[in-house]
């Protein structure tokens, strides 16, 4: 396991000043500041809700005050790697819905695409504005040693967490302004203006004026609602629900006190299947009837485009190095985690024989659900998974149990190491306009030795610092 602070007994360079600070903080101040931070989060209303429990369900994501630090050199590599991936992902989606060269070249087996629930046949042959399907990509990265950052997952549908990236920094700056005088930390607050710029660069075909941009949220009970309203606020655009929009003769409008107002670009934070009850799930109450039609007529752009999810599937993930090579002619800057694909007979055999040393994941699962950690699972659970893999091998992949790097948290009495990952947010616009703020969301597993960082399963967050050169 890689400890980001200590290299043997020596404190690694980027952390020296922060360790001095942390060690000099008196106990009572730590407790006081912790409460202060919690109150700030509560006061601002930075909460997330948990499903099935919606009257007293608002919870705070636990915030730890010890920052996670990356040097500018480390960041350079990470940012090069995720930009490369994000560009390749968009090229890949575009190809899949057009001539499918990558399948013809026999690089990806066609069944992985055409049998994939995220593949959207209605998108075939449709040209999205500037060929950008997924303008906002959150890449989950883990660190395995001094040199190696690996990609664990790409999220190109509606990745969330960026508001925490910004608010964590706000709160750190408010509570410990002196730290930002001693260390030069790259700013993250320009993310909303970058996002706005990127979205603006993707107007639909039939839009001649300055585009009218909105964020589409499932509503205030959604777990990421705070983020939706935060982004709308920071970008100065309307936050709409499905019921605020309607489509008339192929044109999308929002209902305003002045009457209907045309909408040009929708940054949607609802899933494909709920977008439009006419085209997709007819029981959807949060979608807009006729929206997909309006999109395909070129009257409105939907970001990310329906069908983008084809690229962040765990089975497709395994091909990311080949995808990058195929479209960009480059080697991947960031490696994948070694992955066994159970649909390949020999790999399936390996997985079943070594299941107690592996993490097995469902191809379409997310949020830490539908997975098995071999070292921690009971015999019974292992047997169940073996059966599942045998009966439906296409649906499973397996990875070695990755030891995520660790950064300390302020535990009750002492600084105590916990595992972390990193999710930066990459923005891909039209005309090669790409943006990336220097930073990301660091998620931390609060339980000792736990490797699960998801907020739905007891994970917390940290402010992430990229040091300026």
């Amino acid at each position: 396991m890689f400890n980001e602070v200590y290299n043997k007994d020596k404190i690694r360079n980027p952390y020296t000043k922060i360790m001095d600070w942390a060690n000099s903080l008196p106990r009572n101040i730590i407790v006081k500041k912790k409460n202060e931070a919690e109150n700030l989060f509560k006061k601002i209303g930075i909460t997330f809700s948990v499903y099935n429990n919606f009257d007293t369900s608002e919870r705070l994501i636990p915030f730890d005050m010890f920052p996670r630090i990356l040097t500018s050199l480390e960041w350079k590599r990470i940012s090069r790697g995720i930009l490369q991936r994000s560009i390749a992902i968009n090229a890949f989606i575009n190809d899949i819905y057009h001539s499918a060269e990558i399948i013809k070249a026999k690089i990806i087996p066609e069944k992985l695409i055409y049998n994939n629930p995220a593949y959207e046949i209605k998108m075939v042959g449709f040209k999205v504005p500037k060929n950008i399907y997924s303008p906002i990509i959150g890449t989950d990265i883990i660190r395995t040693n001094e040199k190696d950052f690996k990609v664990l997952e790409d999220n190109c549908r509606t990745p969330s967490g960026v508001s925490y990236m910004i608010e964590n920094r706000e709160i750190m700056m408010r509570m410990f302004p002196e730290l930002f005088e001693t260390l030069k930390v790259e700013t993250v607050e320009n993310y909303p203006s970058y996002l706005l710029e990127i979205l603006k660069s993707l107007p639909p075909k039939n839009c001649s004026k300055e585009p009218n941009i909105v964020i589409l949220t499932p509503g205030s009970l959604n777990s990421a609602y705070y983020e939706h309203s935060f982004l709308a606020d920071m970008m100065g655009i309307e936050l709409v629900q499905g019921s605020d929009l309607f489509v008339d003769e192929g044109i999308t409008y929002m209902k305003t006190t002045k009457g209907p107002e045309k909408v040009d670009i929708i940054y949607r934070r609802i899933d494909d299947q709920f977008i439009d009850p006419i085209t997709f799930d007819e029981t959807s109450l949060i979608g807009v009837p006729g929206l997909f039609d309006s999109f395909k007529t070129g009257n409105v752009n939907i970001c990310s485009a329906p069908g983008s999810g084809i690229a962040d599937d765990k089975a497709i993930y395994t091909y990311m190095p080949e995808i990058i090579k195929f479209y960009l002619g480059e080697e991947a800057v960031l490696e994948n985690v070694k992955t066994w694909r159970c649909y390949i007979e020999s790999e399936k055999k390996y997985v079943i024989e070594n299941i107690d040393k592996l993490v097995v994941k469902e191809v379409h699962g997310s949020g830490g659900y539908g997975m098995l950690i071999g070292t921690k699972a009971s015999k019974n659970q292992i047997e169940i998974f073996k059966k599942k893999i045998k009966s439906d091998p296409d649906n499973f992949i397996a990875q070695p149990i990755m030891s995520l790097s660790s950064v300390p948290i302020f535990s009750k009495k002492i600084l105590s190491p916990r595992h972390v990952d990193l999710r930066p947010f990459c923005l891909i616009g039209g005309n090669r306009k790409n943006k990336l703020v220097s930073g990301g969301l660091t998620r931390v597993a609060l339980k000792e030795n736990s490797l699960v960082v998801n907020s739905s399963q007891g994970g917390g967050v940290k402010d992430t610092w990229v040091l300026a050169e």
Partner: protein
Amino acid sequence: MLSRTAENLYWAARYIERADSISRLLEVGYRMSLIPNTNSGYNNEWESILDTSDIKSDYLKYYKELNKENIEFFLLFDDRNNSSVSNCIKNARENIRMVRTAVTLEVWNSINSSFQELQKFTEKKYKSRELPEIIDWVKRQVNLIRGTILNTQLINDGYDFLILGTYFERADFTARIIDVKYFILLPSAEYVGSEIDNFQWSLMLRSISSFRAFKWAYGSKEINSNKIIDFLVLSMMCPRSLIFSIEKINHHLVRLEKFYNRKNKKEIKISRFYENFKKLNVNKILEIGLHIFLKKFIKDLSTFYVSLEQKYFIGIKR
């Protein structure tokens, strides 16, 4: 502005006003329980409190009898009562949360922290003796929220919808309070000037927190029912009178018309209503009949709401 935003602002303000009204009603109940020899009228008073807030039938669904502590709890914290103070605060906060970007951070903070503080009352068992403290807290929160609205909001269309919500609720509530007890304001040879009248009148004034204001406005000598009607219905000095609310509603509706440049051929009905209201006096109201007058007032108010809704909250084609 999104139609839904306008609607959320309007309802947030209504719920805030309602929390205030309900807690003032409870204050009246509390006072009553401190005054000896009111046993005869005791249950009636609690009943009329339920009547005023229009929730008696709801209450009787869950409780067998009219009992002080149950009624207090029902009005304050019972989740099954959509107009309980805690639900009003929750609803106000939820409405604002849905349109957070339409209010200032101060307004959001004041509502959000009221909601957070509310937990300290709701998470333990309700005790009747804590009522005064709770009522004070509610009034303080409402004044705080209203203060931040007045002091920090941009005076734009959103502001108009907030103020409209407040005064629609207030006009409705005041009309109901008078109507539930309208008979005590009717001239009657038997009771004029009796102790009971005086007591009943003072309760009515207190329930809209205008007891002292009335004394200031009319002097303390001759209290009589005509003066009370005048004060509660027709006095521009009384911030809870019907005419005061109508004046505000008219003002803000006209402002919205101008703001959205919708001054079309159609005359604004509320303006004419307001003009006619100004010409009223107590005798005319008594001629019409106080009860009939109030019923009609409440009905007219809901008609104005429907046109507000159609014009601004629906947002499709006009």
